[in-house]
């Protein structure tokens, strides 16, 4: 399990991480869902 994780991390390109981050931030900023927790601050 540890070796699989190390292999996974070793093979991740920084551009993959950047692209996933960009898509995540895009989704957060473009979307407007409302949650129960919103009312609680």
């Amino acid at each position, binding site marked *: 399990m540890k070796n699989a994780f190390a292999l996974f991390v070793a093979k991740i390109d920084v551009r993959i991480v950047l692209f996933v981050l960009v*898509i995540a931030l895009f989704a957060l900023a473009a*979307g407007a869902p409302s949650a129960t927790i919103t009312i609680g601050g």
Partner: protein
Amino acid sequence: MILLWAVIAGFIAGLARAMIGRRAYRAPNVRHFWLVFLAFLPQFFAFNLGATRSSFPDRAIPLVLVSSQTVLLLFTALNIAVPGFWVLGSGLALNFLVILANRGMMPISPEVVGRLLPANTPPGLWAVGERFGLGKDVVLNQGDTVLWFLSDIFVLPLPQAHRWAFSIGDVLIAAGAFWLLWRMGAPQPARQSDREISGTISEMQ
């Protein structure tokens, strides 16, 4: 948070797809990605950062939302040739349209609020015409909402404490994010329309 789950699910599914097919997991080349960070930054202070969101003035929310989503529209237009971006862009455009038509905030009706909140919610926590909590929504009666069908009208049937209200635009954004990340693990012929491929997770042995 619900949209982040689509991103996480798409990433895991796309990566698993690449690994099972013994292919590289590759990201399409996007232009001017810094625009997304620029668009997200004011929203981070207005909606996410605990230290600032509670003191962020409600009257500034429409300006934050509209300017932020305008930048995202520009980013989408610059990258519309990237497969999947038209889905993301469609969701953004629908949300932007209804926000622009309703005081610069996403409308939510009292009926939907009633389905979202527990029955024992103390009165006075929300009011028609006011911002809903510390989010992007404004509570408006259905009859007073322009393009009501594009507003937050759906509620996931989850336990009450974890319910979400969302719009058609949100569904498209979630679907677009999932599809983009899923597609990154596709066989090469399916990606031939990509203008440029860069960034890889090499084939897993």
